[in-house]
Structures are given as structure tokens and as C-alpha cells.
């Protein structure tokens, strides 16, 4: 984002678009924080805040998409600019979906809280939610800094969220076997856990976009080792070291 173009107007447009994208990211991060607070305090108030922000996130997604279409049509970008614009489109989509998942969590928490006392380990979801929200923040930082190392560590971090999800599901199963009356509520919790796991995946997708912008390498659906080779290999060829 720092390289100069002949048209400084184009630079400004790109910078403005990145700013809007990251502002949208900030809003989604705030949603995730509130979803986490709703889980922690089992409070409907925080849940409402998540749902209110949801509308703003949606509006921002549309505004960014419009701007993107306009820039691509007018500037017909190539190389790194094209990759950046494509990535912005992908990141926007992923952020919007992460926001949706946060709203899903908020709605579930609200209905669980309204239904009365919670006899199931709702608070156990906090760790996973915290991890996933941290990953989103980290991936957006990586995007702002175009930092492939941080992006790669986000990819690795997603595995922790998945592990947390698997652990929680195993735990829920024990509750359901012990007392079938808890099954209905367990299913609600399962949806929350799944939403958290999906947020981790969206963070991963954003991180992959960072690698795509910087290295031009599409690392989607690649193993971690392959991705690492891609990042390191590209770095070696840049510095000219073997």
C-alpha cells in the first residue's frame, strides 16, 4: 500500500478503501468483544449491542463493495493492486460473515438467558471465543502491516480454536448422556461453539489473503508446511540467500 502510482488519486482511493475495510474490521472486533461479554456475564444487554452493530457492518460491507467495483472499473488495476483489491473483497466477505457469527452467538445467548438458569458449561465457551476474537484482531493487524509472518501465525492459531471446539463438543456429549433433558440446551450451546469455530476459520481466510497480497501465492486449501515453504521460499529469493 506504500508504493507510489503515477496517479496519486489512485493511491488515495486505495488508502481510503483500506481504511474503510479496517474500520469495518474494528466494528466486527467490537461485536466479538461484546459477544464474549455476553457469554461471560450471560447478559442480554451485550447481546443486543452485537445485534445493533450487525446492521452497521452490513451497511459498511455494501459501501466497500460499491467502492471496489468503481475502482476496478475505472482503474483496471494489475499485479499487486489487483491482488490487493481482490483481497479486500474477500476480507470484506469474511469479516461480514464473522460478524454474522457474532450475531448468532448473541441471539443464542439471549434466548438461553431468557429461558432461565443455565445448568450447562456456558462459561467454558469463553476461552474459545477469546481465542477466535484474538485471531480476527491478529489477522487484521497482519493485513494493515502486510505482515506475512503474523498472517502465518494466525493460520497456526486456528488449530487451537478447532481443538477448543472439539474439546467442548466432547464435554457436551457427556452432559447429554448423563441427562437427556439437557439435550435441547446442549444443542444451543453446540451452535454457539460452531459459530466460534467458524470465526476462527474466517480469521484464517483473512490471513491467507495477506499472504496472497504480499507473495502473490494462493495458499488456500494448502497444508501449513506448504504455506510456510511458500512464505519462506519467497523471502529467500528476495534476499538472494539460498
Amino acid at each position, binding site marked *: 500500500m*506504500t508504493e507510489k502510482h503515477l496517479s496519486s488519486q489512485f493511491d488515495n482511493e486505495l*488508502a481510503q478503501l*483500506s*481504511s474503510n475495510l*479496517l*474500520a469495518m*474490521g*474494528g*466494528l466486527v*472486533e*467490537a461485536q466479538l*468483544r461484546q459477544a464474549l461479554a455476553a457469554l461471560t456475564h*450471560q447478559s442480554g444487554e451485550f447481546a443486543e449491542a452485537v445485534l445493533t452493530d450487525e446492521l452497521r457492518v452490513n451497511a459498511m460491507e455494501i459501501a466497500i463493495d460499491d467502492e471496489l467495483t468503481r475502482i476496478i472499473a475505472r482503474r483496471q488495476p494489475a499485479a499487486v493492486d489487483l491482488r490487493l483489491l481482490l483481497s479486500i473483497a474477500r476480507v470484506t466477505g469474511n469479516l461480514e460473515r464473522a460478524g454474522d457469527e457474532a450475531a448468532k452467538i448473541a441471539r443464542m445467548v439471549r434466548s438461553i438467558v431468557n429461558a432461565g*438458569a*443455565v*445448568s450447562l458449561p456456558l462459561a467454558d465457551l469463553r476461552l474459545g471465543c477469546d481465542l477466535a476474537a484474538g485471531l480476527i484482531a491478529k489477522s*487484521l*493487524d497482519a493485513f*494493515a*502491516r502486510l505482515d506475512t509472518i503474523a498472517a502465518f501465525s494466525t493460520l497456526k492459531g486456528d488449530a487451537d480454536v478447532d481443538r477448543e471446539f472439539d474439546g467442548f463438543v466432547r464435554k457436551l456429549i457427556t452432559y447429554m448422556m448423563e441427562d437427556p433433558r439437557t439435550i435441547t440446551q446442549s444443542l444451543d450451546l453446540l451452535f454457539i461453539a460452531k459459530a466460534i469455530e467458524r470465526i476462527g476459520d474466517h480469521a484464517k481466510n483473512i490471513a491467507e489473503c495477506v499472504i496472497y497480497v504480499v507473495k502473490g501465492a494462493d495458499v488456500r486449501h494448502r497444508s501449513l508446511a506448504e504455506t510456510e515453504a511458500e512464505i519462506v521460499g519467497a523471502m529467500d529469493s528476495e534476499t538472494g540467500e539460498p
Partner: protein
Amino acid sequence: MNAILILLFVLLAGAVALLIINRQRARRFVHWIADPTASAMPDPAGDWGRAAASTRRALSRGEAQVKESAARLERLMTALDALPDGIVLLHREGRILFCNAVAAAHFGLDAERDQGQHIIHLVRDPLFVTWFSWYGEPRPPLEMPGHANASGQPVQLLVQRQAYGADRILLLSADVTAQRRTDAMRRDFVANVSHDIRTPLTVLAGFIETLQNLDLSGDEKARYLGLMAQQTTRMQALVGDLLMLSRLEGSPLPGKGERVDLREVTAHCAAEAFALSTRLYGEEAQHLHIETAVDFDFAGAASEIRSAMSNLLANAVRYSGAKGCITARWSRDSEGNACFEVTDNGPGIAAEHLPRLTERFYRVDKSRTRQNDDGGTGLGLSITKHVVERHGGKLQIVSTPGQGSRFALVLARTRVLERG
């Protein structure tokens, strides 16, 4: 004719020789200027020598100035990094020019790498973005959550923005976490304390007025005085607990030097619990089984441990009623931590109250102490939790409504002392 040609030739040769010599000197001069240590100085008497000397002087003056301003800048940077508050210098549109280490920690920035980055790309909290992009004046300071600190605790920041120079912005950030926590605590605290102290005072004032105005019989007087004594005892207990809490908060962590004789402390607490049970429900009404045999000791503050244990026992006695059955004992868990557990068969506590039990003055049943007047201050579990955490442990509470509760002090194994 020939002579003139020869003369011209000699002159030409001389001029060429002079040129070559001059050129060599010039080259030496250039070499010497570039690196005075590597080559000899040009002849100081010649023109080149004088030029060299004066250039050298001018250069070294310049070098000294550069060195001095670099040193001054270095000192300034060190001072900025040593400030307790965060400082970020920004370009007008928000690109980071400089940030000190504190600001980097507050906002989650990288002081080196993030220069030139737009601050709202990295500090994306919508609160901050809106505040920062707002063009109106005056701009009130912003209070916002900061980047979690090194131990992962949330941080509250107070951020101020100040324009300076022609097109620069100064952001100042101060960590107000502790301040805000104290504020909130003080508010709740004042509300609760004033309520809990005013109630007995109102009762006392009423009795005093009665005693002053009415001519009472000896029996009535004795009864009133008894009630007044009860109220003052309650206030004393409350003030005592308040002082204990403030001591716990204000004092340094207990050292590992003091050996707490757990047998003695447990025996003392057991005696207290028996006395309280007798006072509330009469002799032998409750069943108390308190094992005073402990085969290890503990390093910590004896008075604190005693207070934590007696609070748990007193709660069990108070809340399990006249048919209560209470067991208490010390044990070691699988990891070697010391564990003092108190189990009762009382009414139990509903799950929604459990996370808030250790808050000051939190009551599961708001009407309870007023009607029973059993001497509980509402601070017991806060004190217990404080004590346990100060000793590197935790307070575990398990409760099933209708079946009873289990409160356990789990104390770090690093403080457990085997009895030799």
C-alpha cells in the same frame, strides 16, 4: 628558432609536470578528506595542505554538531520511553511518526515497524476511530479499552489528542485501569457501608431516645440495652471486617517465612464454630465434624488463614439451619495442593448466584441477615477469597440447591510445609 622551440618544449614539459604533481596532491587531498586516518596529510605548508586543514576543521565541527544533536535526540527518546504515559506523534492525516514504548503497549503497536502506518488501521476500536476522525473542537479526552497488558488483563485508557506544529498531532494515553476500578469499588462500597452502618445506628438512636424520654422498668431497660448491645456488636464486626479487607488490599503479599501451625488454627476455628452453633441453635442441635488432625503445615500469614477458615465455618453454621450437618477437614489433592473443605447439607445456592458470592455485600437472599440478625457482615467470603488469592490459591464453591454446598480453600503446594 630551434632555441625557441626547445624553450617552449621545456616550458610545456614543466607545465605538464606541475599539472601531474598538482593532480597527485589533489588526489591525496581527496583521499585524506575521505578518510584522514588511512593516508598521510598533504604538506601543511602548501595550498592543498591549508585547504585540507580548513576543510577538516569545518567538517569536524559539523561532525561534532551532528554527534551532539544525535546524543540530544537519543536522550530525548530515552526520556520519552521512560514516561509513564504513552505518546504517539502523528502526521495530520494520522500516519504514525513516532510512538514510545508505553504507547506501543497501550495500543498494541510495534514502535519500530509501525512508523508510517495509519493509526486507525491498527487501533480499530470504533470508539477510537469515531473520536479520532471527528473534526469538531473541543475534543474531550476519550476513555477506551486498550490492548490487554502482558498478563492478559484488560486495560482502560484515557486518550487525549493535541494538535501541534503546522500539521502534527500528539496523542497522549494514560492507563486509568486501577483508578477506574477504585472508583467503582468506592461507589459500591460507600453505598453498602452507609446502608449497613446506618441501620444499626438508627436502631440505637431509637432506643436511646426511648431511654431518655420514658421512665422504664428495670426489666424493660435491660431488654433494650441487650438489643442495643447486639446492634453495636454487629457494627463492630462490620468495621472489623472492613479494616481486615483494607489491610488485605493494602499490604504486601504474605511471605513464605511464617509457619502456620494448621492443627492449632483448625482447633481454634473449630472452637469458634461450636460456640456460634450453640449460640444460634442451642447445644447439640447441629452436627459438626471438624477434623483437627492435619499432618502438614503451611507458609503464610496465620491470622489471614484463620480468618478465611473461620469465615467458611461460620457461613456453614449460619446457613445450614438447626438441623445442619457440617463436615470440615484438611486434605491434599492429587497435585499436592493443600485443601480445606467445608461441606454442609444446607439449602444450597442456585447456580446464578455462585459467580457473585464473593462480591462484597452480595446477598443471595436480600432479607436474610436483617431478619436473622446472626452477625454476618456480608464481607466474609470477600475476605476469604482475598486471603486465598494472596496465598496463591483459589476458593472453590460447589453447590446444589436442596442438597448442600461445598466450599474449599485450595492453597498452592509451593507453600505446603511437610511436618518433619
